[in-house]
C-alpha cells in the first residue's frame, strides 16, 4: 500500500528554487532514506511533508489523499510524525510527560470528562500511561522517566524525540538526521533501535541522513538529493555506484578539503 507519494513537488523562496520536481513514494512498512550533501534541501522536503512550509508546486498524497498545504497539527492527527535535526523537546517537562502529551493529543475525551473523572477517562489515562512507559522502555529511557528532559544526555534526548514522535500513533515517521552529533557507538545503537521500532510497530519510516554510509545497511531504497534536485533513486548498491552521487559527494569532500 502506498503511504506517501509526491508528484512534481517544489518550493520557491523568492527567486530561489530550494526544491524542484521531486517525485518520491513510500510503501507500507518501508524504510527509505533521503540523503544528500549539506544544503541539498532535505529538511525543506520534510518541512513541506509536515506542513511547516506550503509547497509552491506539485502535490503530496498521504494514503491517496491530497495533504499539501495542511497545517502541522492536522497532519500529526492524520498520522505523520517527525523529529528534528535540532532537538525540540519540552525541556522543562519530565521525560514521561513529553511522551504522554503526545499520546493525549490522539486520545479523545472532553474537559467535562476530566472534571467528572468518568470511568472512560480513568481507563484512557491508565492505558496512556502504560503505553507511554512501554514506549520509553523500547527506547531505553524508562529509567529516566521522571527526569526533566533537559537533564538527559544528548543521545537520550534524541531517543526521546523519537519516542515522542511514536506516541502520536503515526502511520509515517520522518526522522531528520537522528544521528547528528552522536558518537559512532551511539549512532550504531540508534540505527539498531530504528530497525527495532520499524519491526515492532510495522512503521513506515523516511530517514534524512547526511552521512551515506549510515543508511546503507538499514534502508531498502535511497533517494539522493543535490541542490534541490533528485539525482538518484534505487537500492543502496545502485546508489553507491551511481556516478552522479559520487560526484555530488566527492564535490563536497573536495570543498571540505579546501576549507
Amino acid at each position, binding site marked *: 500500500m502506498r503511504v506517501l507519494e509526491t508528484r512534481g513537488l517544489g518550493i520557491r523562496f523568492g527567486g530561489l528554487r530550494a526544491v524542484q520536481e521531486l517525485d518520491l513514494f513510500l510503501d507500507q512498512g518501508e524504510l527509505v532514506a533521503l540523503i544528500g550533501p549539506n544544503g541539498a534541501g532535505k529538511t525543506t522536503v520534510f518541512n513541506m511533508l509536515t506542513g511547516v512550509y506550503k509547497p509552491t508546486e506539485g502535490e503530496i498524497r498521504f494514503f491517496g489523499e491530497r495533504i499539501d498545504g495542511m497545517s502541522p497539527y492536522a497532519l500529526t492527527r492524520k498520522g505523520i510524525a517527525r523529529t528534528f535535526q535540532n532537538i525540540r523537546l*519540552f525541556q522543562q517537562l519530565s521525560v514521561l510527560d513529553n511522551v504522554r502529551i503526545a499520546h493525549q493529543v490522539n486520545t479523545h475525551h472532553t474537559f467535562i470528562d476530566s472534571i467528572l473523572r468518568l470511568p472512560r477517562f480513568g481507563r484512557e489515562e491508565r492505558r496512556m500511561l502504560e503505553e507511554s512507559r512501554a514506549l520509553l522502555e523500547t527506547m531505553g529511557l524508562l*529509567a529516566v522517566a521522571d527526569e526533566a528532559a533537559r537533564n538527559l544526555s544528548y543521545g537520550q534526548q534524541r531517543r526521546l524525540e523519537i519516542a515522542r514522535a511514536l506516541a*502520536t500513533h503515526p502511520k509515517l515517521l520522518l526522522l531528520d538526521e537522528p544521528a547528528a552529533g552522536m558518537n559512532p557507538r551511539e549512532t550504531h545503537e540508534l540505527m539498531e533501535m530504528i530497525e527495532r521500532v520499524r519491526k515492532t510497530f510495522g512503521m513506515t519510516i523516511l530517514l534524512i541522513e547526511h552521512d551515506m554510509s549510515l543508511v546503507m545497511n538499514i534502508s531498502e531504497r535511497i533517494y539522493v538529493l543535490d541542490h534541490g534536485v533528485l539525482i538518484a533513486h534505487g537500492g543502496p548498491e545502485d546508489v553507491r555506484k551511481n556516478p552522479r552521487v559520487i560526484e555530488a559527494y566527492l564535490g563536497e569532500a573536495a570543498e571540505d578539503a579546501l576549507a
Partner: protein
Amino acid sequence: MRKGAWVALLGGRFSLLLILLLMGLLFGQADRHFLTVSNAVNVLLQASPLLLAAIGQTIVIISGGLDISVASNVALSSVISASAASAYGPLAGIAAGIGTGAAVGTVNGVLVSHYRIQPVIVTIAMLTFARGLAFELTDGFPITGLPRSYTQLAWGKWFGVPMPILIAGVILLLVVFVMGRTRFGTYLYAIGSNEEAARLVGIRTVPLKAAAYTAAGALAGMAAVIYTAQASSGQPTLANGLELSTIAASVMGGASIGGGTGTPIGTLLGTLIISVLGNGMNIAGVTPYVQQVVLGTAIILAVVWDRLHISLVQAARRKGEPASQ
C-alpha cells in the same frame, strides 16, 4: 518512583514557605500587633484580589507569554462593573466586571497568538488603551452608589470566612485542578516549554494560547470586582502597579519568564510573601519608599534562593543515583 520529582517540587515550595514563616516571626518580634488573627485576616483580605490577578498572570507566563495590562484591565473592569451594578444590580455588575476582564484578555490573546505580535508589545498597548478608556468613561471620577449587596462581596462572610478569601480560595483550587489535571493545563505547559514542538505533536497552539489570556483577563475581572467592592466604588485609578506585583508573585512562585514552568500554589506563596511584607512593614512604620526598596530586594532574593535550592537538590540526587542509561 516519583520521589525525586517530589523533592524538587516541594523543595522549591518549602523554601518559600520557610521565607514566609521567618518573615512572620521577624515581624511578630518587632510588633505585637502583627501576629494576631485579625491582622492575619487583614493580610488575606488584601492578598485575595492580588492572588486572583497573579494566578492569571501565572497561566499566561506558563504558556510562554506575559500580561502587562493586568492593572489597567482591573481598572477598566472596575469602572464598568460599578456602572453596571449601580444601574442594573449586583449580578449584572459582577457579570460585567468579569466579562470586561475576559474580553480585554481575549483581545490580548488573539493579537498574540493569531497575529503573532509579541506579548509585551500587545499588552503594553492594552495597558495604555484600557487605562485611557477607564478615565474617559468616568471623566476621572470614581463611580459610587453601589448596591449594598454588591459591597457585601468585600465585607460579607460565609461560615465565618470573609467572601474575598473564600472566592480566591475556591478559584485557586479550580486553577490548581485545571493546570495540573486537565489537557488544557498540560498543553499550556507544553506550549510554553516549546511552542514548535507542541504544534508538531498535534496541539492547536493558536486557540489555546489565546485562551490563556482570556482566562487571565477573567481572573483580572474577578479581582476588579473584589477591589471595587472593597473600595465601594469603581475607580479608574485602581490597581496602579498591580502588573508588577502579579509578575513578582508568579516569578517568586517558580514561574520562569521563558515559559513552561510555574504553579498556582507557588504563586499563592509568592502573593503571601508580598502581602505579608507590605503589611508587616506598615505595622512596623517603615516608609513607603523603603518598602519598595525592600520588596524589590525580596523578589530577587526569593528567586535566587529558589533556584539555588533546586540546583542543590538536583546535584544531591545526581550524586545519590549515578546517571542511568
